[in-house]
């Protein structure tokens, strides 16, 4: 039986795995299920899981073994998994197919590779899927407490425009989710009042919404716009929901940056994330680099995996100086 208080692998993942694989994963020891961050299925390769500390190949009973003794994932396993993931509705997922990943209820992202189909110089779709990567998303209530005080202007009673920077798998979205929840709820002990916060969740990863309803805890003062492209979503929310704070995940496209500028000029505080190693590496990236150079953001949170996922390397101000 699962220990109370332990965050095991969320059960909804099992319903999106083919039966055989789900059986193997459910045979894992509890401590492994607590640590699981990725499940990888590759055609004709052994089933692999990745935990916070290392990776394992699994045999038919869910035991960690050498790669030669691992359960070989078949083409049929992959095809079945992909059909289940798309809810037997590949035709309804064409936009996601171009992105290279699908988000399932609970905000878990499943990436895939296969054969790219190019039409008129553009990626039309990906077929013959040969690899799936289930990335398990977990809520970690309380992690925002490490940084929240540095993101708040007590005198002006507002949240600084903040950009969370890290490479993939360092906990950007998890931190953003908890910041949203914390800012929405407020922290009376620190004198922080709850704020109206609007979230554009293009890939349903922040709120883990199912049929538009948030499945993760994102706070009582949070308005969620699910499955909407970020650039449109930000403009819609500013006009319609009068937020004090606007949160978006993984900005990058030029249109996202343009929408962010509009939001910043509208006097709304911004919480955003971006892929990157550090502040300097982003300064030369088109779009986001301009925002950094023009000091649109007043706080940068740098994350890494140095001391485990979600390690806060530093909270910097607009000059790039550490905030004490």
């Amino acid at each position, binding site marked *: 039986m699962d220990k109370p208080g332990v965050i095991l692998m969320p059960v909804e993942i099992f*319903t*999106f*795995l*083919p*039966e055989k694989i*789900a059986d193997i994963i459910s045979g894992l020891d509890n401590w492994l299920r607590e640590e699981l961050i990725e499940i990888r299925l590759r055609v004709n390769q052994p089933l692999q899981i990745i935990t916070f500390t290392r990776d394992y190949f699994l045999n038919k009973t869910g035991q960690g073994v050498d790669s030669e003794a691992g359960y070989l994932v078949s083409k049929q396993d992959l*095809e*079945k998994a992909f*059909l*289940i993931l*798309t*809810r*037997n*509705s*590949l*035709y*309804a997922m*064409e936009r996601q197919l171009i992105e290279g990943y699908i988000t399932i209820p609970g905000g878990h992202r499943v990436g895939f590779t296969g054969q790219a189909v190019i039409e008129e110089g553009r990626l039309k*779709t990906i077929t013959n899927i040969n690899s799936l990567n289930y990335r398990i998303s977990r809520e970690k209530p309380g992690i925002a407490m490490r940084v929240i005080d540095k993101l708040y202007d007590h005198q002006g009673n507002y949240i600084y425009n903040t950009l969370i920077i890290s490479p993939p798998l360092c906990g950007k979205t998890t931190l953003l989710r908890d910041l949203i929840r914390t800012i929405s709820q407020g922290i009376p002990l620190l004198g922080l009042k709850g704020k109206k916060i609007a979230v554009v969740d293009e890939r349903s990863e922040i709120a883990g919404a199912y049929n538009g309803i948030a499945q993760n805890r994102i706070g009582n003062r949070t308005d969620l716009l699910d499955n909407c492209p970020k650039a449109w979503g930000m403009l819609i929310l500013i006009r319609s929901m009068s937020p004090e704070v606007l949160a978006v995940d993984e900005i990058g496209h030029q249109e996202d940056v343009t929408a962010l500028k509009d939001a910043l000029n509208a006097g709304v505080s911004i919480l955003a994330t971006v892929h990157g190693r550090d502040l300097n590496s982003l300064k030369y990236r088109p779009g986001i680099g301009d925002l950094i150079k023009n000091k649109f953001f007043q706080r940068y949170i740098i994350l890494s995996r140095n001391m485990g996922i979600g390690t806060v390397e530093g909270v910097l101000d607009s000059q790039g100086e550490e905030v004490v």
Partner: protein
Amino acid sequence: LTIKIIGALLILISGSSIGWIISIRYLYRVEELGELQLAINIFDTEINYGQTVLSDALSFTAATLNGRLSHLFSETAELLSHHDGRTFNEVWRANLDENLYNNYLLKQDLQILEEWGQQIGSLSLSDQSKINQLTIKRLEYAEKKAREMAEKRVKLIRYSGVLISLMIIILFY
């Protein structure tokens, strides 16, 4: 004499009813093949314009059909929405088998539906639509043949029911 008349009438009514019941199967088959075309048309519109996920599109389709066929679609939709790890094709095939005696379709008609189920959900929007249109054409053809068969056989079977009853009456009396 009264008993003889009542007996003769009973034989006549029973024989005619048996003929009527057998013949009605041909007419219901024509009706069901027509309904299936309508169903796949509605399904096609639903996924093309709404890009609705399969279970919802099937539920919507089920709502437009009569009891017998509606059950086939609604039950499939229900099972799919449970996310029990089965693909649409697996659920659909099992449901076709289970509903085999709940409708008037023949083996060759069910074959069309089974082949449709093998391709649904795993194709792009345009390919999905092509499969739907092809299936509608096949059902149209099956309906045409079924109608021709019904025209030939319905009257024949009904008359046969009456005539066989009369023959039995003459033989007995």
